[in-house]
C-alpha cells in the first residue's frame, strides 16, 4: 500500500497518541450511559406498570409517549432538547440535554419491553395473587413484576446495549464522549482508520463488559426465583 498518491499506511503511533484522550472520552460515555440506563429502566418500569392500570387514560398516555419517542430519531430529540427548548426559555446544560434525550428515548423501548413481559405473565398468576388476598398493587409488586422482569430481561439487555452505542449521538451537542473525541482527533490528525478503529474497539470492550454484567444479573435473577 505504498505506491500512488492515495496509498494509506496504517500508523499505530496515531492510536497510541490518541488513546489517553479516547479513554477519557470513553469515561464520559460510561458515565452518561450508566446514569441513563438506571433512569430509563426505572421510567420504563413505571410506565409499563401504568399501562396495566385500569381505565383508558393511563394506557393512552403511555401509548402516546412510546409512539412519539420510539418513532422519532434520537438525533432529532437531542436537537430539540438542546437547541429547541432554549428558544422557548427552557435551558438544560449540555449534559442534562443529552442525558434526558437518551433517557426518554431508551425508556420508550424499555416500556414496551416491560409491557410485553407483564402481558406474558399468565392470567392465572393475577387470579392466584388476588385469591391469596393481595391488593392489585401488592400483586404487581410481589407476584407479577418479578416474573415480568425475568421474561423481559434478554430484550432489556438489547435495549441497554443500544443505549451505550446511541450515546455517541450526544457528541453532536459538544459532549466530550468517545465519539466526540474520535472526531476531534481524526479531524486534526486525519488518521481516520486508526482513530475510528480504536474507538470502535473501545465500544466493543464497553459493550462486552455490559453484556457480561447483564449475564451475571440474569443468573442471579433466575436463582432468586
Amino acid at each position, binding site marked *: 500500500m505504498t505506491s500512488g498518491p*492515495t496509498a494509506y499506511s496504517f500508523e499505530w503511533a496515531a492510536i497510541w497518541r490518541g488513546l489517553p484522550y479516547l479513554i477519557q472520552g470513553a469515561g464520559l460515555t460510561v458515565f452518561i450511559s450508566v446514569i441513563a440506563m438506571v433512569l430509563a429502566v426505572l421510567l420504563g418500569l413505571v410506565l409499563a406498570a401504568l399501562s396495566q392500570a385500569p381505565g383508558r387514560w393511563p394506557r393512552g398516555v403511555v401509548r402516546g409517549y412510546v409512539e412519539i419517542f420510539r418513532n422519532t430519531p434520537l438525533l432529532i430529540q437531542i436537537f430539540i432538547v438542546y*437547541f429547541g427548548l432554549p428558544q422557548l426559555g427552557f435551558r438544560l446544560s449540555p449534559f442534562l440535554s443529552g442525558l434526558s434525550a437518551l433517557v426518554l428515548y431508551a425508556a420508550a423501548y424499555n416500556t414496551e419491553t416491560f409491557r410485553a413481559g407483564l402481558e406474558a405473565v399468565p392470567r392465572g398468576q393475577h387470579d392466584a395473587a388476588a385469591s391469596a388476598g393481595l391488593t392489585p398493587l401488592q400483586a404487581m409488586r410481589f407476584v407479577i413484576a418479578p416474573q415480568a422482569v425475568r421474561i423481559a430481561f434478554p430484550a432489556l439487555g438489547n435495549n441497554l446495549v443500544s443505549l451505550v452505542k446511541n450515546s455517541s449521538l450526544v457528541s453532536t451537542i459538544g459532549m466530550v464522549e468517545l465519539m466526540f473525541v474520535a472526531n476531534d482527533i481524526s479531524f486534526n490528525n486525519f488518521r481516520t482508520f486508526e482513530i475510528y478503529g480504536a474507538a470502535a474497539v473501545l465500544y*466493543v470492550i464497553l459493550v462486552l463488559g455490559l453484556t457480561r454484567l447483564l449475564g451475571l444479573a440474569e443468573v442471579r435473577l433466575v436463582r432468586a426465583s
Partner: protein
Amino acid sequence: MTMGRRSILWISLVALAAWLVGAGPAQAQSTLEVVKKRGKLVAGVKTDFPPFGSVDAAGKNMGFDVDMAHLFAKALFNDENQVELVAVTSGNRIPFLQSGKIDIILATVTITDERRQVVEFSDPYFLSGSLLLVPKNSTVNGLEDLAGKTVAVVQGAIQDKDVEQLQPKANRVKFGKVSEAMLAVKGGRADAYAHDDILVLTLVKENPDLRATSKVFMPRPYGIAVRKGDTEFIKWVNGELAKMKKDGTYDRLWKKYFADVEGQLVRP
C-alpha cells in the same frame, strides 16, 4: 454462550485488522486522468458556509466554491454541469478526499502546515481572517473579552486551535456544523462563535439578532486541495486558477459574492 469473552474479543480484533488492511485505496494514476476517463468531476463543497458554499431555497448548491467547481468542469469537459457536488464539513472534508469519495476539495480550506502534510494545496485563492459572531447586545468585542466565557467553534476548523492558543482562558465548545455553532450563540449556550470573517459577515446579514466583532485575527489563505502527491492534478488546478485571474473570471466571481462586505475583508 459457548465462546469465551476472550475469544470473542480476539475474533473481533482480527476482523477489524482485516478490514483495516483491505482499506487502503491504492491508486497510481493521477486523479486528473481518472476524472477525464469518468467524464465527471466529484467535488466536495460546503452547504452551510455562505457565500462560499450554501444551498438555496430550491435545494441547489450555490456559492463561490460551487461556481469554481462548475468552472473546472467546464474546463475539463466543456460542460459546466459535469460535476457532482458532495456536501462536506470542516471535519470530514479531508477524510472524504483521502478515502477517494471526492476528487477535489473546494470547501474553504485554510492552508496550514498540518494540512500540508496530508493534502496537496493549490495556490491561494482567498485570504480570510477570523471574527467573532456574538449576540447583538453582547459586550464582547474581541478575543480579549472572552476569558472565562464560552466560545463555539466548528470541529476541524482552524479557529478551534486559534482560540485555544490566543485565548486559553476561554471555554471552547465544539460543533459539527456552522448552523449548530450559530444556534448555540442564538440560544445563549455560547457567548461567541469564532469562524472565518467572510462567513461571520455573511451570517450577520441574514441574522439581525447577531453582530460581528470588528478586529480580524490570524488572516490566512484558502487553498483548493487534492490528494497528497497528486502533483499533476494540482498543477492543472493552478493553471486554471491563473487563467481565471487573468481573464477576469475571478474578479467577476469576487464582485458577485463579496461586493457588499468587501470593505471589511482582508485584502491579499
